[in-house]
């Protein structure tokens, strides 16, 4: 029954307890038995569990009764928390009528939360503020309620106080979801329109698309049409998303569910796609979602060149599951064949790398991540450059522009000093400071995207002892005085180490890169010069001294086991090194050029 369906999502800053709250709702509604239960129920990837993050959206259907004994179907649409995946949030919001806005009672309101709240408000969702972690000694409920009122402009009267950890307040929260979130609108008699909000690839079933029925009804066995793509499929199976998939014959308007229809790749059924029936198609498709564009680029190479074919296969398989991953084949002088890849952000890059290594057993070298530069040539042509090695000869360049962001950093005011220093170091300009709470300040600043690509978030966390939060949006291109710095190892240019750097900082940057590489590359039996150059002119150098000896003086009966294990460890370690010319370069060295300390 449409009027007894509640579709909602949870908006929360990372670490504010979203996954724990979802776990508790699942238990309170009996959707999962104690025997089946484990933490972070909705995060199915190893990486998600280990890092405590959500990468893919998913949905789960729960059933509950209100005080009057009326039965409700509650569809929780789970969304990623990290800024890299914020486009996922919009998709989830578009499929809901309500949102639980979770605020940590000890941490208060965070920037990311505010940004997502605005998105939820744009979608006209019913917002239920939830103050979580009230069991903590450091919880400051009054201050949090004050912030909800003053910073978010929400009625603190309506806030539900819970502890997702202990389960306190969960019953009240369920009641509020059923009571306050409106039932789905939509016309049950209109032609089918269902909006896809995510899809996964299952090696046995093909693509499983998650969607919300907006109008009409979807039936098992019917022929469907993907309106944006224009492809037709026969529905093999539809159902609700419980903790496991629950097959059914029919999904009504307002329902959230999955469909399996012989779709080969997640790229064929992008998020935002509208599903209708082939026989009586809807006239107009639903509003889609903006396609997420890659912002960070890096080349990936197999450590052993012979593994290229396996790597290519792995990339194709990964693409089945990750529509936001874009890549094309590249050839590097030193590193052989690989792929130039575009990522949504650095976390996305790390996730892809980890999945390739873990799920596909690849050993990879990643080049320093870079952004997409816009270069206007003297002949009037405009080129987008995502690879420093394709940077045109400076004599042909009229103007180079780099992508900028509007960044917002919110932190307790005592960290203004170190945060300002950090932002200055990252070429931030046009500061504004505003107090957004009793002792909380928001700094807004324009920055080149390139400056946050590597380790910015870690640095921010470290200078604010974890209290700083960060969000950004793209703000277009601005001219940048950039030069290409090349790195020579043992006299040979390693194209994978080349970087585009702001001219004023090129010397300092090259010096640091050389020093970092000196630390990262193990000594070998010959002296290895490392040089930073611009257009052939050497601007920095460091030398790795020759290894004179590599042996232990003694090896008797009791030493042999230890010696063998050490050898086996080194052998495994070398699998993570790439031979460039005569020099073994470890995987970590390719990112070491970016290290700032």
């Amino acid at each position: 029954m449409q009027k007894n369906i509640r579709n909602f999502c949870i908006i929360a800053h990372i670490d504010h307890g979203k996954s724990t709250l979802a776990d508790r709702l699942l238990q309170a509604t009996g959707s999962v038995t104690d025997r089946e239960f484990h933490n972070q129920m909705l995060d199915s990837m190893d990486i998600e569990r280990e890092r405590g993050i959500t990468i893919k959206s998913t949905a789960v259907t729960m059933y509950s009764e209100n005080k009057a004994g009326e039965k409700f179907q509650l569809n929780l649409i789970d969304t990623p928390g990290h800024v890299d995946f914020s486009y996922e949030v919009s998709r989830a919001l578009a499929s809901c009528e309500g949102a639980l806005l979770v605020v940590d009672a000890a941490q208060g309101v965070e920037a990311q939360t505010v940004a997502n709240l605005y998105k939820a408000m744009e979608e006209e969702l019913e917002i239920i503020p939830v103050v979580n972690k009230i069991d903590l000694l450091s919880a400051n409920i009054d201050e949090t309620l004050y912030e909800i009122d003053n910073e978010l402009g929400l009625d603190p009267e309506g806030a539900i106080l819970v502890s997702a950890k202990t389960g306190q307040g969960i019953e009240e929260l369920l009641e509020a979801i059923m009571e306050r979130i409106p039932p789905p609108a939509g016309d049950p008699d209109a032609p089918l329109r269902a909006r896809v909000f995510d899809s996964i690839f299952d090696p046995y079933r093909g693509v499983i698309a998650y969607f919300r029925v907006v109008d009409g009804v979807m039936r098992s066995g019917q022929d469907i049409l993907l309106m944006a793509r224009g492809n037709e499929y026969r529905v093999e199976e539809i159902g609700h998303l419980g903790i496991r998939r629950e097959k059914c014959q029919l999904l009504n308007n307002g329902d959230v569910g999955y469909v399996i229809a012989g779709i080969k790749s997640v790229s064929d059924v992008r998020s935002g796609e509208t599903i209708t029936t082939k026989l009586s198609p809807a006239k107009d498709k639903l509003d889609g979602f903006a396609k997420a564009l890659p912002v960070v680029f890096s080349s990936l190479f197999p450590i052993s060149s012979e593994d290229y074919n396996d790597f290519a296969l792995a990339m194709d398989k990964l693409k089945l599951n990750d529509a936001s991953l874009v890549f094309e084949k590249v050839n590097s002088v030193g590193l052989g064949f690989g792929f130039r890849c575009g990522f949504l952000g650095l976390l996305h890059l790390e996730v892809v790398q980890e999945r390739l290594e873990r799920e596909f057993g690849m050993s990879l070298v990643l080049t320093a991540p870079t952004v997409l530069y816009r270069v206007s040539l003297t002949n009037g042509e405009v080129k987008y450059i995502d690879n420093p090695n394709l940077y045109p000869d400076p004599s042909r360049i009229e103007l180079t522009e780099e992508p900028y962001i509007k960044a917002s950093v919110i932190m307790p005011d005592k960290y203004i000093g170190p945060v300002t220093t950090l932002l200055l170091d990252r070429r931030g300009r046009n500061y504004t400071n505003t107090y957004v709470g009793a002792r909380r300040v928001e700094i807004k600043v324009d920055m080149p995207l390139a400056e946050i690509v590597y380790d910015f978030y870690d640095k921010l966390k470290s200078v604010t002892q974890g209290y700083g939060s960060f969000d950004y949006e793209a703000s277009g291109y601005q001219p940048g005085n950039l030069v290409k710095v090349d790195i020579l190892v043992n006299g040979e240019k390693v194209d994978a180490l080349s970087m585009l750097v702001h001219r004023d900082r090129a010397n300092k940057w090259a010096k640091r890169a050389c020093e970092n590489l000196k630390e990262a590359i193990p000594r070998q039996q010959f002296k290895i010069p490392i040089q930073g150059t611009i257009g052939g002119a050497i601007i920095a150098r460091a030398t790795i001294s020759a290894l004179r000896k590599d042996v232990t003086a003694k090896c008797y009966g009791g030493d042999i086991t230890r010696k063998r294990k050490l050898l086996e460890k080194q052998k495994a370690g070398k699998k993570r090194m790439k031979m460039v010319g005569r020099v073994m370069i470890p995987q970590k060295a390719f990112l070491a050029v970016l290290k700032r300390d």
Partner: protein
Amino acid sequence: MANESIGLYIHAPFCVKKCSYCAFNSVKKPEDTSGMCTALSTEFIRRTQQDSFEFQTFYAGGGTPTLLPPEFWMRLISMVQTPSLRELTIETNPATLDAIDYSSLLLSGFNRISVGVQSFNDKNLSLLGRRHTAGEAMESLKLIAGTGFRNISLDLMYGLPGQTPEDQQRDIEKTLRFMPQHISAYDLALEPGTPMGDRGEKASENQCADMYYQIHEMLTANGYIHYEVSSYALEDKFRSLHNSSYWNRTPYIGIGPSAHSFSGTKRSWNVSGIIEYETALLYGELPEESSEDLTAENGAHEVLALGFRNTNGVDLGVLAGFGFKLNPTDILSTGFVKQKGNLLIPDEKGMLFADHLACKAAELLENVQGFDEPH
């Protein structure tokens, strides 16, 4: 395992005082060592009663094995005595205070003596925490030779903090006055948990390498054969048979706390605590802490880890026996390894890079597992 060549190592875990660099298992000598002597004899009996072993070498190490009474060694050697036994070594320290009765060692059956001189420089000896002076070391060496030992090994150390090549040269010159049959010259290893290791005191890598080559030059010029990273023999017959058996993977039985044993396919090791060790044997148990069965790959890795350390080299035939093929081109191209038939033999520079060569070779190992060429 009967009738195969095998070594025997006895670990005497006591010292008067521990040296500043030493990470071997040893404790201050107790008043009464009879408990340990009984335990060592018991373990020997337990480990050898099932089979008849043809021991080729007997090595009394430590600790300071001369802190156990000569009668103990005599008894133990008489229990071991087989016609195959060729080399019986005991380690000694040249501190005259210890008043070692060298002739009783000879009478016990030892035919080789290893003297822990380490240096002929009093400053360096005290830095190392040794209890003897250079003068005492020279006295001891004379005494030992006078007693009738015809196979004397002298231990030297170099790479000490502040030590110059000139210091080392003087040490070598003084060593050469005695022309011992065997010299072990060790580059000081900093072991964590030792006073010197924790202070991180050592000569620079460059100085250590220079000293390695200096000692190689001086000793080979005087007729010594440099047959292992740290080992020199005056003639082939004076190579340490016992130590070589570690490097060519001959089986050995280790008796005593923390001693390791090797059966040919399995390595095992004893508990290191003195009380634990003695108690286990009192209760009729073997004092073994743990063991590890070696896979074929483990075996091949051992061959590499050990082979480049000495001039017997790595035997490609032995690797093949483990099911591994090694294309030696990259190893030979380093210029400090030569191929002779199936053997890859390092020169003195190769031995100084033994770990590097082992790692490189380990990467090149190809598992052929009884199949023909994979391609």
